């Protein structure tokens, strides 16, 4: 039997081998997912891939997602891999418009890992799950030889119930919509960079890892009919998340640089290292696009949870599928997606 021509998946991924950039959350990751994984595993995409997939079981709307965590060092100011693993999946569900109900967790452990380090991470997961209001109901463990993994990797998968009246889709975004951000950007990424101890830099910074579900619920309560799109800007930062939005909706995202909340320590580190804060990872922030008539209410709701929440820009029709930032003095620049990992610049 021969397959019908239209059922032959179209593979567009041409990179000869997997590089680190394919896991960095930017353009290369997107090529891998849309050029190889999706065509073979999902089929033609009707909607752009979001943070979680929604489906119905016996009439109830559910959402499912999974996330893996590899981080060095395992613990850092403000958090650790265990907390990230819980919050990451809770957040992916939250910004897709779902409340996490249950998680399962998989550990890949390197032989030789001290038990007290593992126990500390398991305790951190239990605490994060309790704070996020989600139950961990099962999982799996694998141990690999010493030297075959970097101490421990954690994967979590979660199922959630969709929040009533929230319908998130980049296709619903319209010119004039406002772009909201829950708080200062880059704290997590810069904290990790400094915690690696390879730079002779110190700063009073903590990772922002936390559940963003309370923010999503507040937004839903205040502005559900006007809530068009949400994302937690993790790897690749705000720039990558908004570029995906711009591409998926075909519109322009216009940012005002001075409106973007940013701690001085992050700004200073980025200036020194030649990094763009818009490319730096966050683990507890929420980006939202809201219809203009709901923007005030949505902002007030966000500020009720995170006082530094702000409107950072708006959607316009041109230039199509592009993110643009305007500085205080009127200079404009295109904000591109991150290519690979952010690398400090020296010379």
């Amino acid at each position, binding site marked *: 039997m021969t397959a019908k021509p239209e059922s032959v998946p179209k593979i567009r991924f041409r990179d000869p081998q997997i590089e680190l950039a394919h896991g960095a959350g930017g353009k290369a990751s997107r090529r891998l997912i849309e050029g190889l994984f999706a065509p073979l595993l999902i089929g033609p995409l009707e909607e752009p891939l979001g943070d979680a997939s929604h489906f119905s079981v016996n009439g109830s709307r559910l959402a499912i997602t999974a996330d893996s965590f590899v981080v060095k060092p395992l613990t850092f100011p403000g958090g650790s891999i265990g907390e990230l693993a819980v919050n990451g999946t809770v957040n992916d569900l939250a910004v897709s418009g779902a409340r996490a109900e249950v998680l399962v967790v998989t550990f890949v452990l390197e032989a030789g890992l001290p038990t007290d380090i593992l126990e500390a991470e398991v305790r951190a997961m239990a605490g994060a799950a309790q704070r996020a209001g989600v139950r961990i109901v099962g999982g799996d463990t694998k141990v690999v030889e010493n030297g075959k993994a970097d101490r421990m990797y954690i994967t979590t998968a979660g199922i959630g119930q969709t929040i009533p009246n929230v319908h998130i889709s980049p296709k619903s975004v319209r010119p004039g919509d406002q772009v909201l951000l829950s708080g200062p950007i880059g704290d997590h990424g810069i904290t990790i960079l400094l915690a690696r101890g390879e730079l002779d830099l110190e700063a009073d910074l903590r990772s922002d890892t936390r559940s963003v579900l309370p923010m999503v619920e507040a937004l839903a309560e205040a502005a559900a009919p006007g809530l068009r799109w949400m994302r937690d800007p993790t790897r690749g930062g705000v720039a990558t998340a908004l570029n995906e939005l711009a591409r998926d909706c075909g519109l322009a995202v216009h940012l005002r640089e001075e409106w973007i909340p940013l701690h001085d320590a992050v700004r200073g580190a980025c200036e020194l290292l030649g990094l763009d804060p818009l490319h730096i990872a966050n683990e507890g922030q929420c980006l939202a696009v809201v219809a203009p008539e709901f923007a005030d209410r949505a902002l007030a709701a966000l500020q009720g949870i995170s006082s530094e929440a702000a409107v950072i820009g708006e959607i*316009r029709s041109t230039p199509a599928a592009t993110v643009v930032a305007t500085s205080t003095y009127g200079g404009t620049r295109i904000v591109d997606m991150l290519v690979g990992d952010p690398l400090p610049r*020296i010379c």
Partner: protein
Amino acid sequence: MRFVDEFRQPELITKAAEEIRRLADPNRHYRLMEVCGGHTHAIYRFGIKDLLPSNIELIHGPGCPVCVLPMGRIDDGLSMTEKPGVIFTAFGDMMRVPGTHGSPLEYKARGRDVRIVYSPMDALKLAQANPERHVAFFAIGFETTAPSTARTLMRARVLGIRNFSVFCNHVTIIPAIRAILDSPDMRLDAFIGPGHVSTVIGCRPYEWIAANEHKPIVVSGFEPVDILQSVVMILRQLREGRAEVENQYKRVVPWEGNGAALRAMAEVFQLRPYFEWRGLGFISQSALRIRDEYADWDAEQVFSVPGLRVTDPKAAQCGEVLKGVLKPAQCKLFGKECTPDYPIGALMVSSEGSCAAFYNYEHRKAVVAAAAE
């Protein structure tokens, strides 16, 4: 933030932009070259072009150390990763630059021990911490970074650290400017002089540009106010028929340069008779090699470096772009085969490379139109 915010104040920027419009002769076209890749990056990042009248054209110069390195040198460096026990170290800037068989980052992904360091001193510390391994440092940069490489080698010698070597690719700025000026297809009115390099070499080495070539050169800082102020100073000179070296970046650049840094460079390095630059070809006395007294720490002596000469892909016009003869978008590969995702030339990799910066300007007209909505 101190030392940054003062130089990004909207009022100062608006004032400088107005002054530029007042000074620029509307009947004249100005071609100013910013020599330094740091300026190219800043001009792109701050949207400086939007603030200039359309008859002032900024031409990107050769001052991006990553961009001017020919692919053969990258291959030579990466050949060291094949030797057992070697830890190969480089600045983050180098990590995505393509060699014939991939970039340092791709070598790392394939399992070679390639690490990012933030200073040559960090590479030396790595050697001290791993006495059973050999740490090779891929040194790049103009006079900006050469002194710290020199100090590191002096320290390695004093401490007698034998498992450390430097693959020296330091180049010097003045011969590059001379090569640009000697290029027959190049017409320039003035230079925005490099800021960081001048903190080391000072302003004197540029005097011949003013005296012999009769072109103004203003050494500039990297903030928006700095760059605009430098354009103002250039326009004043042109208007008054002067050609002088002026220092806009006085808060950092001493006229005579940094004596201690220059002495360290003189102690460790000597000029190579010639060195190949990407696009510009062989330029005599344009690069530094490690003196024989330091041969034990010279990676070119420690390893048998193949000394590869690799021609750039024929269609790529990196050289013309580096010289400022072509705009990045005029290269046949720009935005098609060569993008920041799949760079063919280094100019598309480094954030200071004019192609990478220009790539982000592709839609510039549309952006300006949209911003005016």
